[in-house]
């Protein structure tokens, strides 16, 4: 395991709104994640764990502080650079799967490749192989509505990993699944991440899941990390 921190969060705050309606979601968070490390952000709803994940994923910018990923400061990036960062470096897995309902499984998986300008033939090949790797080769042309929850999440994982990101951000990935399926999904993730040495930030409120999956557990409460 590489000892250099891949992610370096320094004194990050995030304040929503202004004046009297001001809400501080993060109030000074500092955290290093080493490359290849699997970290679980554990906290209750409203603790700020999802906000932190969105900042690390480049979906939003911190109010103050800096977030370095592989040496680049996300706070300094333009919107277009952030998009490129999300496309090339990060993979997202959400609780609600977030598949495009009108696209088939394989079309959902190849979506990031479209924005990367990959040729139709190559991306179809890549997406099909990714689906094969998550055990869905039979379901390539099915739409999300024709897939079970576990299958949908596997499609989402295939999509998140299609660009071989250095960082996978998973927000309650098993939250909508029964315990059997959850186990399968976690196994799947573990296998693939180990193969590529991918760094993972897992956001969850489930202590058991965090313990089973992560190398390290970081607890959050009211916008700060707690020991």
């Amino acid at each position, binding site marked *: 395991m590489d000892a250099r921190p891949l992610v370096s969060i320094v004194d990050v705050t995030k304040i929503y709104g202004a004046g009297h309606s001001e809400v501080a979601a993060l109030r000074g968070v500092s955290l290093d994640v080493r490359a290849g490390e699997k970290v679980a952000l554990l906290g209750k709803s409203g603790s700020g764990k999802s906000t932190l994940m969105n900042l690390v994923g480049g*979906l939003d910018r911190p109010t103050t502080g800096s977030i370095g990923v592989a040496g680049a400061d996300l706070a300094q990036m333009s919107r*277009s650079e952030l*998009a490129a960062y999300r496309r090339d470096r990060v993979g997202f897995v959400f609780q609600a799967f977030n598949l495009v309902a*009108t696209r088939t499984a394989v079309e959902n998986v190849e979506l990031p490749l479209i924005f990367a300008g990959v040729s139709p033939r190559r991306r179809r090949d890549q997406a099909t192989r990714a689906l094969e790797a998550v055990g869905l080769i039979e379901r390539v042309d099915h739409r999300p509505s024709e897939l079970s929850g576990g299958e949908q999440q596997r499609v989402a994982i295939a999509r998140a990993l299609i660009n071989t990101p250095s960082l996978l951000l998973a927000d309650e990935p098993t939250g909508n699944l029964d315990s059997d399926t959850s186990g399968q999904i976690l196994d799947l993730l573990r296998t693939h991440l180990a193969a590529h040495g991918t760094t993972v930030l897992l956001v969850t409120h489930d202590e058991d899941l965090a313990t089973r999956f992560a190398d390290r557990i970081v607890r959050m409460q009211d916008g700060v990390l707690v020991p």
Partner: protein
Amino acid sequence: MSAVRFSDFATMAGRSLTQNRTRSLLTLLGVFLGAFLLVISLSVGKGITESVERTLSFGGKLKRIQVYPDYSIDPDQVPEEDMEIEGDVAPERRERLRKQLAESWRAKNNYRPGTPLSESLLQTIERWERVESVTPDIQISSRGVHRDKSMWGMLYGQPAAEPILSELIVAGNAFDRDDARTILVHEFLAYEWGYRSDEELQQLPGQTIELRFGGDLAGGIAGMVAYHRGGDVEFTPEEERQLAESLERLAELVDTLPIPEAQREVLKKTFAPAPDESPPAGESFSETYTVAGVFRSPSEAELITLREQWQLAHTQFILPLATARALAQRLPEHRDRGYQQVMVLARDESDVAALAERLRGEGVGVHSMTEFIEQVRKHVTVITSVMATLAAVALLVAALGISNVMAMSVLERTREIGIMKAVGAEESQIQRLFLIEGGLLGLLGGAAGVFCGWLASFPGNAVARWVLDQRGFQEKLEGSLFSYPLWVVLGVPAFAAAITMLAAWLPSRRAARIDPIEALRQG
């Protein structure tokens, strides 16, 4: 920005349009109707102009320039005492009256301002570049004497190459050369001269006819009386001589007649012998020509296509043009006052405008079909512009609908947009996706409009022709009244696409600005 393939954008846009078929079709219908109207108005405008051009250019009509003496008079040229307006008159009316006064002064004094269309001017014009030919309109009153019978008639000069002549020939042939000393005689005169049966008529070609010109009053009267009585009254040359002598005596006898003074004066004026100093005006002379053929008057239908040669319907003798021109130079009214009208034929239609301008520079009046067409084109352009503007407004209304529908579509697809952003879509890419979606609607609707406009042109053409027939237009317009130049076929869909892309601008902007976190929280 990484380069997303255009085909991928187009596929994604097309997919989103087919996702909601009813809505897309309804939006398309609006664009289609606007584009359809636009295509129809543009193609009709273009088609009518082209059709008029085709019709008028038939038989080289567009190469013709009609030249006539410019008689318009500048009121300042008229002596001031003849221009006085009495009474209190408003300035505009005064100006109009002064114009009329100047014109009547010109007529009274037989004053002809401007350049006369003299033979020497014609010969100058003939040497100009880009001039194919110059044809003066020569009409000379004359008497034809044949078989001891004198018949009055109008003589008309025609080029040997004029194709209508051979069509009008009923016996013999038309001319073979412009300077031949041959003549064509009207079939009615031939009849009056005793060539009655069809067989007899064939005898006339090859015979000679004497034409008499000039101020021989008695001969003129005899010829006209004979012509107007349809041959019931005939004068031998001896009788004409007697008539001339009696007319001279009549002038002397007028004083003794028991008639009112006014009538005495008018008779004196009519029969007074020409004063000695006035020749050559009063001089008469004659020429002998061999009859080449006998012609008939053109029919009503032929006259419609002849138009400029309507004189052929009122002519009794036709001479080859060069012969007629030489003859005209021996007649004072033609030699000194010039021709009444001259047709200048340009080498090419494109030379007409420059030639017309050069002719005007010579101080003569000019009229050409090309200038007429310019007028037609102007009118049609105005009408077309109005129609096209209305059609463009229809397209704009459709575009507003698109704006509305796309704004809704952006709302519905907020989550999808959020997902696309999460996986790395840039704002500009999202925006382009929606712009292309809008453009696609315009392109499809525009193309359908062009196609259906083209289909509609077939019944449209038939209906327009039927309406023209009902209104009694005799001139048949050549070809289709609808024209589809490339710029219409490609331009209308492109214009529609541009308009709909403009309509998609705001919704696409909104889509691009969607906050992915908010978007992903939905659902």
